[in-house]
């Protein structure tokens, strides 16, 4: 299975600021995804991070608020821009490995609190 790390693991931020979350995988993967898990809720897909092109966003999520980069096959970043308390959530990176394309592996998550 792929080993995924995320930085930071947690942060407390002031409203109006931005935070960039990093996701690093130990092997080349086909797909990388960013999810949000709000308190007491299930996981919601924000976007698919595409290598070398713009991310594919789900309904309700826009690039201006959640810009995503994926410069290579093992790394991606998600920025939460102009944060408000409603952005307080756990942000998860997940990947699909080349060897098992229908299985997703998840990072440990980044716990964000916006004051």
């Amino acid at each position, binding site marked *: 299975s792929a080993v995924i790390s995320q930085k930071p693991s947690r942060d407390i931020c002031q409203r109006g600021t931005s935070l960039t979350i990093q996701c690093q995988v130990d092997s080349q993967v086909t*797909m990388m*995804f960013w999810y949000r898990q709000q308190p007491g*809720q*299930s*996981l*919601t*897909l924000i976007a*698919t991070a595409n290598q070398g092109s713009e991310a*594919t966003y*789900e309904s309700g999520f826009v690039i201006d608020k959640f810009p995503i980069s994926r410069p290579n096959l093992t790394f991606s970043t998600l920025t939460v821009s102009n944060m408000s308390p409603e952005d307080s959530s756990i942000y*998860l990176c*997940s990947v*699909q490995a080349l060897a098992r*394309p*229908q*299985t*997703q*592996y*998840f*990072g*440990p*998550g980044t716990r964000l609190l916006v004051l």
Partner: protein
Amino acid sequence: AQRVTQPEKLLSVFKGAPVELKCNYSYSGSPELFWYVQYSRQRLQLLLRHISRESIKGFTADLNKGETSFHLKKPFAQEEDSAMYYCALNIPYGNNRLAFGKGNQVVVIP
């Protein structure tokens, strides 16, 4: 629209008792279903895939296309089964994304 429903949020069972977590899905194509588990302070991890027809940690799940269900079962619950369980549907077109249910919190009482 693709949707996964897990009706019970919290399930408490005694150790040794059977446990069943219900999952129903809505999808017009041929479904690919998964159960993911998240133990306390650990990351979300795959428990089992319907396509593998496997038993993991004593858990099994059978896809019933007629009832559009993929219920997770274990005949004898153990304390270490206490966790959050998510049913997920893979949507293959485009980006192979997963649609998750709301999850079941399972508490096994010693």
